[in-house]
């Protein structure tokens, strides 16, 4: 909780920061540092997902990748069917 600043502070106008400036800003800095840890975890998770998402996008966008993917799926399906018949 922010508090008012030191009344002897020459910069204080009587309406500016009140007593306890150091306490308030220190508590705020600590709260922000705790928040930063959570944000870093969120960012790490997003950045971990990014390469896969980009690969999927490239795969979707590139016709050669589509053809290759279709060929592999077809081959796989044929093999599975042949295997099932045997």
């Amino acid at each position, binding site marked *: 909780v922010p508090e008012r600043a030191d009344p002897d502070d020459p910069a204080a106008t009587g*309406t500016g920061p009140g007593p306890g400036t150091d306490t*308030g800003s220190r508590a*705020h*800095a600590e709260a922000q540092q705790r928040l930063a840890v959570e944000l870093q975890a969120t*960012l790490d998770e*997003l950045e971990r997902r990014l390469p896969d998402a980009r690969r999927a996008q490239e795969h979707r966008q590139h016709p050669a990748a*589509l053809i290759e993917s279709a060929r592999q799926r077809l081959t796989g399906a044929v093999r599975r069917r042949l295997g099932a018949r045997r």
Partner: protein
Amino acid sequence: VNAARDAEHAAGRLRGRIAEVSTQLDRATNDVALGWAFWLRRQLASRRRPRPGRIKGGPLVSVLTAVYETDLHHLQQCLDSVSAQTYENWEHVLVDDGSRAPGVGETLARAARRDPRVRIVRHEHNAGIVAASATALATAGGELVVLLDHDDVVTPRAVELLVTALEVHPDAVLAYSDNALLRADGRVADPFYKPDFSPERLRGHNYVLHCVIARREAIVACGGFRAGFDGAQDHDLLLRLSEHGPVAHVPEVLYHWREAAGSVAADPNAKPYAYDAGVRAVQEHCDRIGLDATVERAALDGVYRVRRRPDPAQLVSIVIPTCGTRAPVWGVERVLVVEAVRSIIERSEHSRVEFVVVADEHTPDDVLDALHRLAGERLRTIGFAGPFNFAAKCNLGAANATGESVLFLNDDTELIEPGSIGEMASLLAQPDVGMVGAKLLYADGTLQHAGHVFPGLATHALLGYPGDHPGPYRMASVARECSGVTAAAAMIAADLFAATGGFDEALPHNFNDVDLSFRLRRSGHRIVWTPYASWYHFESASRDPSTGDAERDLVVSRWHTELEHDPYFNPNLAPHRSDWLERPGRAGAPPYYVDAAGHRRFG
């Protein structure tokens, strides 16, 4: 306080990066989420290529290409893309600028044998792109001219749509389109969806790029290609053409800029001399149009800072509505209006200001006393009675202001950039600039305002991005036109504000700045946002941030057309997003790819 601010900024950098990565993730997953059926339909559509030459008649269009040591495969693709145009009445004028590489001359000669519309001129010695382009222009017979780089590729309807743009805008001297990059593997990527013509932005960087259509007589009238501007000859020509008449924009990707090794598309440092030429091109443009400014290179390559000279004698009235709110900032409680005023007194380079503080009747006396002690004779306090009405308070302040221009400033702000007020005032010196907005940052250093974005109700461009982010296509690094700017920090000429009738008091909380921006634009004024003026904005720290239905309904009923079409956005971008995300299904869709043997293949 510094430690608390630094800690909040550190968290803000992470928050900004999260916003940026979220956009990238959305961009990457959009196409995938649409499903294979959509993808297949798009591929099939791209195979149904329109028949070349189906558009008969029309003016002769000369496509000008300077050729020098071009990769043969790239050159052939360039030639093929022109041959595939749906518009029939074209000629392709290619100037071989003394190429020694084997095959270039032969490739060109073969193309000319196949199609008489292909015309070849050869320079025996390499004379540079300006001389080659000038030769091409002198050879061209068309009344319209398309500029095309030797390794770029135009889409089949490019000439047709560019010609149509000039037909629709008969007074336009020039038309440009969106473009994408052409990767080394043949993939088309990174589409650049541009705004409609933005003269302020063109001074900041060549966002139009180089494949444009122009009227030949306009090019000749403005002096054609000029020697000494190699590397920035296109920027120089565009600036001079823009001085001759209106410029049209086709919001569609009509050409693919090749990302070849050694090209600026692949490496912005590839042609350092081009940026010095760019500085001269912009400087001479400013001199020609009477802009008292010095042009210099900005931090990013290819970006220029137009440093206008503010008039130090000009009185700027800073109108600040307040009720003397106390709120915590960086862990310490402050009286917002006092610190807003203090930051200007202590930091602003432009000192000829008056503060017109419009204070609610219940504003504490000690706040007003503190303001008087801080600002002395430069302060005027105006009492305001009645329920909260931001528009009415601003109007009252402006009516009591004596300055030539008025800076409307929220009380929950703190000046960052010392040159902000001078920068905004000097931009306003251009008579067609109606209002100027500033870069606003949240307390954590992330972007709060980089200009309004429509369609839909206003949002702020790149909201929540890192405060120092250059923006897509560098849009946050340059001054540029916007459809509107926030009145949290906006400057307008006092007489213009009075002439427009001020803010609409029927919009007491929200959208009064949107309404004023639209009225200014309707009267022919430009709204400019600049990154060289900046404040912290501890947004809504001093009042309830919620928006009212009545205000929303009023704005929508009054401005539904303007809300649906933002000329400084782009219809290819996802509406209701402020992060320049493409509409799903449009991102990087390749019309073809190039196989190992160098043949173009279609999905």
